[in-house]
């Protein structure tokens, strides 16, 4: 049984992959994101300077052979900070999305599968969280926990959890009366086994699409919070905090704004293009439980 499913899954994912590979925007986006991951992993080797080392005699310098992207307001090397920022930003966003998934998916599956009062209460909580503007809710949570990158990412994770809750809930709800669920139940499977071994794999399509779009939005949220000074604390660099530093000195030089802003925009664009392509490639599958 499991072997048959394995073969079928492989075929299906191959078909999805084949469709993805034909989509030029998706290939370019995936390549760009892969490059970011490589840069993040290899960052200690790639950085030409210590990203935290200050040199107050060479503040806000223009690009040169020594400093490819110039220096920031404390004389730190912008190119090295951009590389470090790539690592810190990606890691922070992964943490936030992991938290959102860890909260949203199990609660969503339970709400959709069990129904009744559990569903009513959990859906009420999700609706309340969704009714608030995301950035305002994130700000409120940071206000409670205090500023800092980890706390900001906890806030972002909580803000995004209801989205995964909704998708998981709809998926579980749509299959809970299917024959195969009844069959596994008759075989004596526990509810958690049914949910995580049978229902979850069957809704992986819409969840994957949601995940890709959410990653782009999380990058936006991290950048916004760090720009507001509520995320990464000095000397840690993220793209958002680099934009903030450049903004503080915008009347001296505008050049340092460009690189981190570009990284933010390109990354968001890549996730959104990949999400669109993934939804198209999965076709009907991406709408299971919608």
């Amino acid at each position: 049984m499991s072997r048959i499913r394995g073969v079928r899954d492989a075929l299906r994912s191959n078909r999805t992959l084949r469709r993805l590979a034909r989509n030029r925007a998706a290939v370019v986006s995936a390549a760009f994101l892969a490059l970011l991951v490589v840069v993040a992993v290899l960052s200690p080797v790639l950085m030409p300077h210590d990203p935290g080392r200050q040199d107050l005699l060479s503040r806000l310098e223009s690009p040169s052979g020594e400093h490819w992207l110039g220096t920031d307001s404390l004389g730190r090397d912008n190119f090295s900070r951009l590389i470090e920022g790539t690592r810190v930003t990606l890691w922070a966003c992964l943490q936030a999305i992991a938290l959102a998934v860890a909260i949203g998916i199990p609660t969503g599956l339970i709400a959709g599968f069990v129904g009744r009062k559990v569903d009513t209460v959990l859906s009420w909580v999700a609706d309340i969280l969704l009714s608030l503007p995301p950035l305002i809710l994130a700000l409120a949570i940071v206000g409670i926990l205090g500023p800092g990158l980890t706390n900001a990412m906890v806030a972002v994770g909580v803000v995004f959890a209801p989205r995964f809750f909704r998708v998981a809930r709809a998926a579980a709800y749509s299959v809970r009366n299917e024959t195969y669920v009844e069959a596994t139940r008759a075989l004596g499977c526990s509810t958690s086994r049914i949910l995580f071994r049978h229902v979850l794999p069957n809704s992986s399509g819409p969840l994957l699409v949601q995940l890709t779009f959410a990653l782009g939005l999380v990058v936006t949220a991290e950048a916004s919070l760090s720009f507001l000074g509520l995320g990464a604390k000095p000397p840690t660099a993220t793209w958002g905090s680099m934009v903030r530093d450049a903004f503080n000195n915008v009347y001296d030089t505008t050049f340092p704004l460009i690189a981190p802003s570009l990284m933010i925009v390109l990354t968001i664009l890549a996730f959104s293009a990949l999400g669109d392509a993934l939804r198209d490639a999965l076709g009907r599958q991406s709408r299971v439980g919608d």
Partner: protein
Amino acid sequence: MARVLARRVLTSIPALLGVMLVALLLLELMPGDPAEIMAGENATPEAVQMIRDDLRLDDPLYERFSRYVGGVVTGDLGESPGSGIPVWDRISEALPVTLSLGGMALVLAVVVAIPAGTWAALRRDGLADRAVAAAAAVLQAVPPFVIGLGLVIFLAVERAWLPANGYVAFADDPYEWFRHLILPATALALSAAAELARQTRGAVVDVLEQDYIRAARAKGLRDRLVIGKHVAKNAATPVVTVLGLQVGRILGGAVVVELIFGMHGFGALALNAVVTRDIVLIQGVVLVSAIAVLIANLLVDLVYVYLNPRSRA
């Protein structure tokens, strides 16, 4: 209309109570002693105790909740501990700025997006359609603060065509009010416009395929009437939905945009509340945002009723 309004107001009460409960629970989630955190680092024990008494932290949650709800009903959102300034005073002072900003952003978004989306739909798969789709995809990916920074650099810092800072009340000088708002409103409007244009295009394409449009054309109705009357009214429903969703988004975006353009509105107040860790003000900000979103939803529902007589039943 009045029945729909009354029903919608009643059904939003549980959501509002929920938001108030979340706002109060925020305090419970604070790591450590909220009174000590709010008093600041070098506070005397008396100052901490005063804040604790102000917030009535020693009372049980349900008592604080019922008192908070009672206060909200009478327009009292509490006072900032320490300064003693009523939270509602600070919010009502800041709201006109953000209402001007958000209102202009919404108007800009509608003025740009609806013609662009309709145009793209009428030239389906043509050059215009692809150009609008590409522009919308890019603009949707650019966060408001990046657009804001770009506008500041190109139009305010390097060329000084428009002011980069501050706000002038409409009552003081309508021309300066407009000049100060146009850049920040554009920064907020563009991503909203992108989503709105996409939605408009989709809705118009769907409606154009309907039989009643073919019938209207077949009986010789001029294009202007077909588009302006039959298409517009039927395509409006999904567009209005998306327009309503932009209110929450613009409120969030205002935090960043008001920082960039040095405006002292609701967003700046929210940021200030977080930086000074003024929990009572944060609660007020959360509640007022929720009410703003609820009002937007309410207006959307009323427009539905206007557009679709069937929903009046």
